[in-house]
């Protein structure tokens, strides 16, 4: 408890002290960064109405210490990074985005990293828009709401059979580790149900372009996708 309070105090101190001067600096090209954010969008929401999805939402991320949302379940690695004092300032974010697994060993974030400094700084310039003035988010279509595929409420409402999901999942775990670890193939454990279903339908409809996943999703019926979403969503 004492730790939590001190972190909040620290957060307040950091945000309060640093925001003013940091906002005056141009970090990078935010328009280019907006395009780069496409890489992040399948897991992170940003903007008006942003919610936690596969990853936490990124509104107001600047100067927040790592792993501070109570309503999001982070990896053990991310909690350890918070204990070690990782703060999402420009340096902390840049190091993490450059090499996620090197910076936070055990992170669930299935992303190889952006090795080029310019790419990182452009992306941060874009993220920064949603931290400087969170009460004044641009009126353009919020990135948070856009859905890759429009699915009928009936499909989204299917309740998956967990036993069937467990069997079907055996086909996934040849590549996707049941621990959720990322060693080159994304972790798929603990995702919100809807995100899982939408992602699988996006592959099935070939709106996502990975040939293995298009093939695997291509032969799954709606109830099978729901069963998988239920199984992996509840897996610890």
């Amino acid at each position, binding site marked *: 408890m004492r730790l939590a309070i001190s972190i909040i105090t620290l957060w307040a101190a950091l945000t309060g002290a640093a925001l003013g001067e940091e906002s005056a600096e141009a970090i990078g090209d935010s328009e280019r960064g907006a395009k780069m954010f496409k890489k992040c969008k399948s897991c992170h929401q940003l903007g008006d109405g942003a919610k936690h999805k596969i990853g936490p939402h990124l509104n107001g991320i600047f100067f927040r210490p790592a792993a501070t949302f109570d309503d999001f379940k982070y990896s053990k690695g991310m909690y350890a990074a918070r204990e070690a004092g990782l703060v999402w300032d420009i340096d902390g974010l840049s190091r993490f985005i450059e090499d996620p697994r090197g910076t936070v060993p055990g992170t669930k974030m299935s992303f*190889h990293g952006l090795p080029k400094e310019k790419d990182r700084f452009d992306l941060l310039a874009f993220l920064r828009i949603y931290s400087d003035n969170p009460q004044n988010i641009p009126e353009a279509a919020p990135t948070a709401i856009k859905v890759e595929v429009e699915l009928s409420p009936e499909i989204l409402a299917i309740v998956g059979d967990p*036993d*069937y999901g467990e*069997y*079907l999942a*055996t*086909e996934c*775990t*040849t*590549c*996707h*580790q*049941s*621990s959720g*670890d*990322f*060693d*080159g*193939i994304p972790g798929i454990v603990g995702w919100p149900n809807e995100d899982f279903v939408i992602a699988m339908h996006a592959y099935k409809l070939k709106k996502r372009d990975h*040939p*293995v996943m*298009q*093939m*695997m999703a*291509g*032969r799954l019926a709606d109830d099978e996708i729901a069963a998988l979403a239920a199984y992996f969503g509840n897996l610890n």
Partner: protein
Amino acid sequence: MTLNRRNFLGAGAAVAASLSAPMVLGAGKPRVVVIGGGAGGATAARYIAKGSKGAIDVTLVEPSRTYYTCFFSNLYIGGFRELSSIAHSYGKLASDYGINVVHDWAIGIDRDAKTVSLAGGAKLPYDRLVLSPGIDFVDGAVPGWDVSSQNKMPHAYKAGSQTELLKAQVEAMPEGGTFAMVAPPNPFRCPPGPYERVSMIAHVLKEKNPTAKIIVADPKPKFSKMGLFQEGWANHYDGMIDWIGQDFGGDVVEVNADEMTVSIDGEVTKVDACNVIPAMKAGKICEMASITEGNWAPVIGHTMQSRIDENIHVLGDACAQGDMPKSGFSANSQAKVAAMAIRGALTGSKVFPAKFSNTCWSLIDTDDGVKVGATYEATDEKIAKVDGFISQTGESGDLRKQTFEESVGWYAGITSDMFG
């Protein structure tokens, strides 16, 4: 314990009533013996034990304490992986899943008594037997070569010391020397394997011995991912690799391990290192159990049961099932179908329609990965292909790098799926 499940059930209610409930359960606990601790056997043992939560006794018989995966052993030859990174132990299968891991050779199967004899003298009774022994070589397949030649001309088609030997021999080749590979006829373990291996050896030679030559004598007119490999060889190793297919006498081969010569269509070449990969057949234990037809053990796709003995399931390279390639991925996929069927038969758990899949990644040079894959379903006749894909020639370097990184992720995935 002489009371097995079948005669317990046959003995009737009188016996059952006279025993206390836990003893009845203990006596009736079904037994599964798995022979072979590779991609098929280890996966099957783990999934049966995990799924049945102790309701099935699982024994895994595997002679080696350390298992070296065949997949990624070519990357060790190419210098992209350490040998230790492809070594795995069975510790977690025993400690986390309660599997009785026995390091011994299975030397006989009595299908009537339903027992497995081990070289160490033990006899293991089973209700269901899983055979996943991998491959053995067909005697006399390559004239001049037999297993006594394997130190001079390694096959390196079972990973471990053979792989180390082949790598050392390639690295010791004299400047401008010649490496030869005798490739196997279909069907064989890991269809792209020989050609990934040629790529990895070319990678080593390009760095250490750039004037060296590679000759491949192939009894086939074409091979897996041929267009992708040939494009890669031209891009990375121009002029180094001479592939001699069936049309040019690649099927008329004789080797002499003492003289270190390879004769291809009558033309004798002195070589400095030679990899002979003979024609293959199911691991010997399948023959001993008399469940083979020709070189392989035929199975029913729905359950992976032997077509000759319904109490035996055959997985992976050893079985003849239809359209799936002989690969670690396939064996792992088949093992899960078999595990579900076995649990269903022995404990009444739910059984779903069999689904199979396979993807084979190959590395051609640094960050140049390619893949081929397919999905399959069981028909009464065979395991039949449903859908598939293959990497394209001319793909971007970024995509190829991504494909390689994906293969590294797959390796971590499948090995944790096998060994826990």
